[in-house]
């Protein structure tokens, strides 16, 4: 019973957070001065008809939200407007239909552009996340197990250095090194690959993934190592580890059966919280390696001032991170028997 309430609470919270992001996203692009459509409206060289055309095209002729004609809080509009005919509800309605506007740059629907890029980002982040957690956990386990030895100090320093590397710079350095060693230096596929058989294509994508994934792994493994080390140190000084040792279990058995699961639990939460930071890494890595993902979309949209794409990409990333957080919470409650009765 408790468990269901816990799950419902978490899901409700995620939905609320997504609503918050929807509102934030809506107002950011209307409050801040940079939106091209409204910047265009203020251009004195345009004729009245042209301004009106732009306003209609982007829906700016409608009141922002009920009772408010514009974003000037002192200037009330009429409250009698049909709430479904305001900018905000049209925005929500369009989102529910999967519409995010039209790209300024390519004139294609933003949703179409982003959906194909979403999978590329998931592929890259998924591979990087799995590898960095794996490497970080292994280093962390050794560092904690061999605490206060050279192995420990060595892994600690490697982790701190890795943590301090700016992701994009590491990407540039690896790209520089890779381009001198015959690795593909950008994009996701060699042109003309789409007609090749599946395995050739997969191999090609893998070789394109190598450098971005390596960058990702190096940057994020340090943090996972530090967390794993500290978490395992806590667990290994618990009384139940002494019990396990007193039972005659050897070091390997104790680590495997008593320490790792307990120490991994905090890591699950950290991985989830980290997903937000992870997207920061994805933006940088995809920009450096021209990886056609959401992060790359942000980079391109910024440089082309393509605001519908920027808005859509931000929304999609935020929702993805919130969903992943929810997933991690649910995993945690499944892994830790104590959560259910709390």
């Amino acid at each position, binding site marked *: 019973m408790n468990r269901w309430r816990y799950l419902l609470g978490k899901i409700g919270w995620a939905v609320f957070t997504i609503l918050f*992001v929807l509102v934030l996203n809506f107002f950011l692009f209307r409050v801040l001065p940079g939106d091209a459509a409204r910047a265009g409206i203020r251009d004195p060289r345009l004729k009245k008809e042209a301004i009106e055309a732009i306003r209609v095209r982007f829906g700016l002729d409608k009141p922002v939200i009920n009772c408010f004609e514009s974003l000037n809080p002192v200037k009330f509009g009429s409250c009698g407007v049909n709430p479904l005919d305001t900018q905000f509800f049209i925005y929500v309605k369009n989102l529910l239909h999967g519409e995010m506007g039209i790209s300024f740059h390519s004139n294609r629907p933003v949703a179409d552009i982003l959906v194909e890029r979403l999978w590329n980002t998931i592929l890259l982040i998924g591979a990087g996340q799995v590898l960095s957690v794996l490497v970080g956990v292994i280093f962390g386990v050794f560092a904690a197990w061999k605490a206060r030895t050279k192995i420990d100090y060595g892994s600690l320093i490697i982790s701190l250095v890795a943590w301090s590397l700016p992701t994009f710079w590491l990407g540039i350095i690896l790209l520089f090194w890779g381009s001198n060693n015959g690795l593909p230096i950008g994009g996701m596929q060699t042109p003309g690959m789409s007609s090749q058989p599946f395995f050739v294509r997969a191999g090609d994508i893998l070789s394109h993934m190598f450098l971005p994934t390596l960058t990702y792994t190096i940057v994020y493994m340090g943090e996972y190592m530090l967390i794993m080390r500290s978490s395992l140190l806590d667990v290994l000084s618990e009384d139940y580890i002494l019990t396990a040792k007193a039972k005659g*279990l050897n070091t390997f058995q104790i680590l495997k059966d008593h320490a790792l699961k307990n120490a991994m639990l905090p890591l699950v939460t950290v991985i989830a919280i980290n997903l937000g930071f992870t997207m920061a890494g994805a933006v940088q890595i995809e920009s450096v390696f021209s990886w056609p993902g959401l992060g790359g979309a942000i980079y391109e949209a910024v440089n082309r001032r393509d605001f519908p794409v920027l808005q859509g990409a931000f929304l999609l990333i935020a929702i993805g991170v919130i969903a992943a957080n929810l997933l991690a919470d649910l995993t945690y409650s499944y892994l830790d028997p104590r959560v259910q009765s709390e």
Partner: protein
Amino acid sequence: MTTPPSSPAARLLDFWRVFRRNRMGVAGLIMLAVIVFVAVFADAIAQYEVRSSIAVTTSDIYQPPSAQHWLGTDDAGKDVFSNFIYGARVSLIVGFFAAFISIIIGGVIGIVAGFFGGRLENFLMRFTDIMLVIPDLPLMVVIVALSKPSLLNIIFVIGLLGWTTTARIVRSQTLAVKSRKFVLRARAIGAGKAHIIRHHILPLVMPILVVNAVLVVSLAILNESTLSFLGLGDPTALSWGQMLNYAFGRGAMSTGAWWALFAPGFGIVWVVLGLTLFGHGLEQVLNPRLETHHLMNPRSTVKNEATGQPLRHATGERAALDKPILLQADSLSISYINEGKPRARAVENVSFTLREGELMGLVGESGCGKTTLMLGLLRLLPAAGQIVNGEVWFGDTELTALSDEEMEAVRWKGISIIFQGAMNALNPVRTVGDQIAEAIAKHDTTMKGDALDARVSEMLELVGISPEHKKHFPHQYSGGMRQRAMIAMALACNPKVVVADEPTTALDVMIQAQVLELLDSLRKRLGLSIIFVTHDLGVVAEMCDSVLVMYGGVLAEYADVDTIYNNPRHPYTQELLKAFPDLTHPDKRLTSIPGYPPKLDELPAGCRFAPRCPLVFERCRVEEPKVISIGERHMASCHLLERMKPE
């Protein structure tokens, strides 16, 4: 945290003395000092003014490092080294000012939420949670892209989005400080909220805030360089990120101009690594962790240390007793050795014998070495602990000489242990039945499947727990049940000896009695030998066959239970008995022993009991008494006994 009030300057000096020894922290501090110096004196260090325009020809672009341009030139033919030097200014300015904003916001939210609690806290923390989930860099990109990319804007955006972790950390620290006694006292005498926050909460939140600030600065610097690299930097302030943006976007890669790509990144790494090391050092000093655990390699056993030869048959006459000896400790000495601290001689020269079916009580005050002695028997000492002398005989095997693998086979199957406080002694994420089964399967590989399951049920029934509870987790058990489950686990492999280390301390009186009764009845049914570690002399009188009294790590007196209670010879035993109620003389006054037990790393010179002994004389203060055999199975360590002994 009972630091005596001292001036801030004195405290800072104390802090510096400790910090100085932290190599990582000092290295970080030096790295930061260097870069701050460079930023401040940029005009003197850089050979070329960044903003002044120079006549550039195509041959000036991407020149490799030379005597004129130490780090070559960039895409505009400008000196990379000079740009690098000036870039330090931008990075540091953005880092420090943005972090300042974040720390103020996070600090205020954290303290207000933690201190005032209630709905306000709920609202603030919910808001913090939301901001924590929203990916910050994409949001920064959106905001900066929509507003003007000026340095001031970037500082504000980074600052206004970077406070979430600070708020969480400060809040939990405020909550912890708020319930401290001196804060409650200040509230009780009617101190105002502002006064409490300023004088009581802030000083204790500050250290954590400082450590956190270092991290926030480094994140702000990383974020600034990322924004600049993505093309959102202030075009009038050339930061390291921007240098990389220009170099990467304007052909440094294809020209092979590694210097233009390498130098700015190196600057970022230098600052961030310096901050990280510095923060790591600060944290280790302000919040020291022992960083020891149960799986660290134990120190190897040493024989014949200063105290002399191991005495194999020192424990008196054995022939008179009918039952064979199961476990025997001979002149066992154990020390704790921590670097930079004097060695703590936790157990010294302790001997005893345990026969089949015998129940020996081990009594003494907290910190007298009881638990150390028991852990030493099973070689389960923490990493700092070392057996420095003596032998432990289990039947025909000398345990201190066994290899780790051989010792693992003895544990639980030969000697098992019931730990105090079974809540923490059971693994919270595995079912109780599973943990019992694990012990059985480890020592008897033929036990599998149904047979194993049946044995687990049998063991639980033995201690009065219904077998269906084996599927449950420790937190679903009551305190008494957990202790019973621990006993079931300890008996699961049919051990010959069970060490019960204060098995009832955490339990209420009724449950204590039940658990003791259970132990006693199991001993009689299964013919166990038990070493019972306790404070409770009443229990010892009722249940035990023999008693070992320890004081400050040494054997004070060792005899059968009747001798201890009726004819105690060591002054400590005598005093100890006076401190316990005697049912036959209910009107007798109870007396406590004045003073405190000795600290194991600051032992008195002579007898360890001398400072508190009512019968102390001059020899006690200079010479340590030997363990003297007074009668059949009766030993004590006191100079008085030697004197009285007819020579």
